[in-house]
């Protein structure tokens, strides 16, 4: 099982002289170095795209949160559990923003047992409410990796082949209490093509390294809270699909939004099918989305129709994922001194003051650092290329 050579551990290497990064200029100020460090950290955020690789767009992800005794530790403020749950709320929002047709489920593990907090669902509100309520749970006992993965596997194994099945474990303890051999479970996971990734809060644990390596996931240990946030954000992007996942045509419905007012003669208030098992909140509403196959009513999309099983989405939901499929090329970076034209950013109309300017390879317009980040993170299209596209 051990094909990779072991990396040298950090204490086995030589000394790292981290103070040599800081250099003073003639007057003794560190301003230039600090600006350089800030600039580098901004650039680090632009991650290279995968290129022409098939991505797993419809994802079923189970998040396993360790709620054992070690989560009471106060190295993340106010304690590890509260900090983790808050970051997970943010993660759930971002996840559904980038992958609107995917689903998440949450499992907690403590006291050598695993429990499902929320089932696999495509609606972020349910998960966020559950995460908010979970802040009060007591952290006792030891976690159980085997039980939590088993619980997730029971649901994931019935998911259709074209979706990507993933488990993300947030693991803070250094021990795990399993009823059976976990290496056998790893073999089963590989057979079912489930990808497991782990984010460790304490230190590197060998069983997690083997688990992630065998199933094709990633294992990282956090340094501090902002690093934790970055690692969670890395999980938001759709992973490259494994070569054995099937591609199929999925039948989906696109319901119309019917808006009715009380003055409308034929409008009658009715219950949404999604409220069948939820107890809180008013259930009656006038308009909504009607399933094209069975005419059941729902108030929000995307949802899976409980009556006929058809997945209901709206066209903007699918459009949200298009930027993963057609990613924007990275812009070419060049130093400010070499730039011959006007010192003027064509997107935000500001002056170019930073060290480098970015040029779009297609339309040759220049942008500043902030616009480059904004374009690649949020906008996903170059503002000036759009005109050339239409004119041809």
């Amino acid at each position, binding site marked *: 099982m051990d094909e990779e050579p072991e990396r040298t551990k950090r204490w086995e290497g030589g000394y790292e002289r981290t103070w040599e990064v800081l250099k003073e200029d003639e007057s003794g100020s560190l301003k230039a170095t600090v600006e350089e460090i800030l600039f580098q950290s901004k650039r680090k955020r632009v991650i290279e795209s995968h290129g022409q690789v098939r991505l797993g767009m419809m994802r079923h992800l189970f998040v396993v949160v360790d709620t054992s005794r070690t989560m009471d530790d106060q190295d993340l403020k106010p304690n590890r559990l509260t900090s983790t749950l808050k970051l997970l709320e943010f993660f759930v929002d971002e996840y559904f923003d980038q992958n609107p047709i995917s689903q998440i489920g949450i499992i907690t593990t403590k006291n050598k047992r695993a429990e499902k907090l929320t089932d696999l669902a495509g609606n972020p509100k349910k998960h966020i409410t559950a995460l908010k309520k979970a802040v009060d749970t007591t952290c006792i006992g030891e976690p159980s990796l085997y039980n939590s993965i088993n619980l997730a596997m029971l649901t994931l194994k019935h998911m259709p082949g074209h*979706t990507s099945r993933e488990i993300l474990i947030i693991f803070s303890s250094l021990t795990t209490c399993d009823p059976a051999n976990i290496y056998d479970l790893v073999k089963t996971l590989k057979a079912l093509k489930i990808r497991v990734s782990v984010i460790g809060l304490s230190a590197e644990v060998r069983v997690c390294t083997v688990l992630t390596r065998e199933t094709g996931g990633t294992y990282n240990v956090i340094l501090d809270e902002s690093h934790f946030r970055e690692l969670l954000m890395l999980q938001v992007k759709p992973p490259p699909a494994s070569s054995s996942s099937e591609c199929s045509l*999925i039948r989906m419905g696109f319901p119309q*939004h019917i808006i009715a007012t009380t003055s409308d003669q034929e409008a009658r208030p009715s219950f949404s099918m999604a409220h069948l098992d939820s107890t809180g909140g008013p259930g009656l509403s006038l308009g909504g989305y009607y399933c094209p196959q069975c005419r059941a009513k729902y108030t929000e999309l995307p949802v899976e129709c409980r009556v006929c099983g058809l997945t209901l989405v709206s066209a903007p939901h699918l459009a949200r994922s298009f*930027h993963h499929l057609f990613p924007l090329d990275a812009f070419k970076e060049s130093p400010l001194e070499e730039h011959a034209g006007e010192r003027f950013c064509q*997107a935000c109309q500001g002056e170019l003051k930073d060290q480098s300017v970015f040029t779009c390879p297609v339309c040759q317009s220049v942008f500043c650092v902030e616009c480059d980040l904004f374009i690649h993170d949020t906008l*996903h299209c170059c503002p000036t290329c*759009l005109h050339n596209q*239409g004119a041809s």
Partner: protein
Amino acid sequence: MASEDEVSLLVIVLDVNPIWWGQQTQRQPEFTLSKCLDAVMVMGNSHLIMTRTNKLAIIASTCQESHFLFPSKHWSAGDGTGDDSVSAGGDGKYELLSVANDFMAEEIRALVARMEVKDQADTLLAGALAKALCYIHRLSKQLAAGQDMTSRILVIKAAEDCALQYMNFMNVIFAAQKQGVLIDACVLDSDSGLLQQACDITGGLYLKIPQRVALTQYLLWVFLPDSEERAQLVLPPSVHVDYRAACFCHRNLIEIGYVCSVCLSIFCNFSPICTTCETAFKIPLPLLKAKKKKVKPVT
């Protein structure tokens, strides 16, 4: 009353498609591009007067480029004492407003002079909206500590939609939704499905103007109040937005369709190969029950 800490930014995107405006001048000489610009100037001035901390930007969108009419490159905010010929209007008008109007007029004249008229009767709004979002992003980073900025974009659309820009338009709309920017639309001629979706997703207002001559009135009545004040006014009702998807093969709007799991293209009928990404699909066979083998009688 808004305090010093609240900055409200209004970006007006004006569609300056030469073919549409040329035809419009022939159809209805009372409403030309200069009248439209007057209405936009009145709207801009009114917004700047409402609160001292309000900010304005105006972008003209043509087929080849989107150009900032205001603030233009040659103007910087601290430049109050610059040109005597520009600022001393002599009529007691607030200096910022007269400067803004003069710059706008100058820039639009230069833009129209250098514009090449190609054979394109539709408008490319996605580029102008993308630039507007970059500008908003830059200004939101430059705020003083403790200041809050709310921004909105008002699109004044004249010509038809261009179908090529659907994907980029949707990207821009989602970016606006993420940044909390409202997109309002004031449509002069024909209804635009893309703008209706934009207004619905970001929470803005969509209005097709019945009488173009009264553009100033509609702008001031409907689009001048910002989002908090709109809750207290009775504004035109929201339109019914058609969110059905169009299939990639025939461009018909469909209610139930098949979606390729790799490239998310939508088809109305089942086909064994996806035309966009050329993936062969597994055809789902009906599940057969395992037949029990019949024991052949031994002869």
